[in-house]
């Protein structure tokens, strides 16, 4: 399991290969989040961020077969098309890998202490949290298995 909160970029292909080396693993599902069309700065709460992501990964491991997992989230100044976040989950089969990957991403959106500040033509503004993110995380509160 690897959890990293870093300013620098990451290589998703290399990270996926690192968690694919066990012959019991039959599936790796991954998600990469990107900056859309505005420059932004990502602030976070050092210490709590790593702790919150760790708890989300532990919860995913309790629900699905997660044989290995990597979560990398960047902070600091980011520009359009930059990578923000990687979640990659290795499992025996695709069902668990897909579900755990989506669960980790949905929970990260509402539980990990990151804040985006966008630099638009009109000026800088803090991005407001979306109700749809709470709803996405809420889907998982009913036990799935």
């Amino acid at each position, binding site marked *: 399991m690897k959890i990293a909160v870093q300013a620098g970029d990451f290589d998703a292909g290399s990270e996926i290969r690192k968690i694919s080396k066990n012959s019991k693993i039959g599936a790796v599902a991954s998600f990469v*989040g990107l900056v859309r069309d505005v420059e932004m700065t*990502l*602030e*976070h*709460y050092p*210490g*709590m961020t790593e*702790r*919150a992501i760790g*708890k989300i990964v532990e919860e995913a491991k309790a629900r699905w077969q997660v044989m290995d997992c990597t979560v990398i*989230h960047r902070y600091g100044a980011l520009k359009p098309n930059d990578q*923000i*976040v990687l979640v990659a989950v290795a499992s025996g089969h695709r069902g668990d890998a897909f579900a755990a990957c989506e669960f980790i*991403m949905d929970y*990260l*959106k*509402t*539980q*990990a*202490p*990151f*804040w*985006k*500040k966008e630099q638009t033509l009109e000026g800088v503004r*803090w*991005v*407001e*949290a979306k109700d749809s*993110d709470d709803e996405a995380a809420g889907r998982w509160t009913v036990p799935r298995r």
Partner: protein
Amino acid sequence: MQLKVKVLYFASVREKLGRDAEEIELPADVSTIAGLRSHLRARGGAWDDTLAESRLLRTALNQDMAQPGAAIKAGDEVAFFPPVTGG
């Protein structure tokens, strides 16, 4: 014996308050996050305005998300911030 709590502010809350962290003496009548929030609001001005809006405020206690009723004691770390927007 430690008598203070560490209080942290992030993102828009930090900017509105003009402060990112402080250590404050825990008043005898403050035992929850909600109590600490009321205590800070009593400073008036931006403190009262920024910490008034419950919908836009989240709190953490010792680096875990926490509800307003969570009990706090000397030595704890409490953080106030807006709803998170990572990912």
